[in-house]
């Protein structure tokens, strides 16, 4: 049954709800989209953190080439729009050359992007730990690696947790451009419903609410983790 803009006004709110979310199980579109968003975000976050830590260590390394390489990478990623990076990964780098799933390619693109930002956060975190901490560890006879692992990194992690949490939240919301390469994530699912029902308000608001609740939940978890790590700060 075709539906035109001017007929929308004649529908009651309940009828619009039904048309947008119940008819043809349209809520499933949103649910599947949310699943895709979560999957891609999760993979990207893991990759972003691993890559970020690696890049941070390279950047802080005394070996000039490593430091330069890491700096150049961060510079390029930060200097170009994410949407362009995503399309380069899909249409130029990985799409034509591999059989990887679109969502996987997208996760790699988001992870590579996030890694650059995480690297700067981690580097700042390591530098924020007083140099005396490292010296105390070394003077006890611990190796450099042990001092990093048991003394510097735990303190750095505590210092950067808020920024890291922020990066995580930004990343999740940034995956809403997945539609550019034809992956149906939460945002694109809302678009599809809008295209079919010609109702902009409800699908977009629904999508916004789901993102908001997701971010709210994550913020809550992060705050709890932060509080637990701050136990040693009681004075």
């Amino acid at each position, binding site marked *: 049954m075709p539906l035109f803009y001017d007929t929308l006004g004649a529908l009651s709110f309940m009828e619009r709800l039904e048309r947008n979310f119940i008819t043809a199980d349209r809520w499933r579109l949103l649910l599947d989209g949310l699943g895709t968003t979560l999957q891609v975000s999760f993979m990207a976050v893991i990759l972003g953190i691993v890559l970020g830590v690696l890049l941070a260590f390279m950047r802080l390394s005394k070996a000039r080439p490593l430091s330069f390489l890491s700096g150049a990478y961060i510079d390029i990623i930060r200097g170009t729009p994410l949407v362009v990076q995503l399309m380069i990964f899909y249409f130029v780098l990985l799409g034509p050359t591999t059989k990887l799933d679109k969502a996987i390619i997208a996760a790699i693109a988001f992870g590579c992007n996030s890694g650059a930002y995480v690297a700067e956060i981690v580097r700042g975190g390591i530098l924020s730990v007083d140099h005396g901490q490292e010296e105390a560890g070394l003077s*006890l006879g611990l190796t450099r690696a042990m001092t990093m692992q048991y003394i510097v990194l735990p303190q750095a992690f505590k210092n950067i947790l808020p920024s890291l949490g922020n990066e995580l939240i930004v990343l999740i919301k940034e995956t809403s451009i997945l539609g550019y390469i034809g992956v149906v994530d939460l945002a694109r699912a809302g678009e599809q419903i809008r295209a079919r029902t010609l109702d902009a308000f409800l699908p977009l608001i629904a999508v916004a609410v789901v993102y908001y609740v997701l971010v709210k939940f994550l913020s809550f978890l992060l705050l709890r983790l932060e509080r637990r790590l701050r136990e040693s700060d009681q004075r």
Partner: protein
Amino acid sequence: MISVEGLHKSFGELEVLRGVHTRVERGEKVVVIGPSGGGKSTFLRCLNLLEIPTSGAVLFDGIDITARNCNKPAIRRRMGMTFQHFNLFPHLTVMENMTLAPKKLGLMGKAEAAQEARELLERVGLPDKANEYPGRLSGGQKQRIAIVRSLMMKPEVMLFDEPTSSLDPEMVGEVLEVMKRLALQGMTMIVVTHEIGFAREVGDRVLFMDEGRILEEGPPDQIFSDPRQPRTRDFLNKVL
């Protein structure tokens, strides 16, 4: 035990140590005094390789520890060090601060390390602080913990880098007390300090350092009552 020969250290253009020679015997208590910027701390930090000397040698039990192939962690295990700002690990409890290194280096088991830590805490009068975080301790308590944390490694020599300089005056005594007792037990100690009283009481020998050299050295009585160098006299007039 420690023999220092022609030690030089530069930070870029700045030459901080300009040829330091001295020997420290086992069991000896050496106190290093002198004006700020004279190279005292840098000298101490070269001894356990927190600073790498630009040239010269440090022989520890006959081993040249400035050699490139020297195992730095192994050398540092035999030398304890305490710092002006204590440098306790704020994310770990007092007990964890003390047991981390011996446990991670496989020198002690968990129970043994905890037992040793409790005994040391008892000795410095802080047995009830084992599960406290450093943030809740006073400066004097922190420094006492820092000293016993070093002692957990059973070092052969202890280096003290201005251990009382950042303490409130009323807390200086409790830290010096711990150091005096350590001296009585026969520990080899090298102490950079401005505490002239402590130097007189505990020191076997006093080194006066200025402009990157040891300008004068001798027994505390001689240095403090009859300094030979005008620069030493000047300095002592200012601090005494």
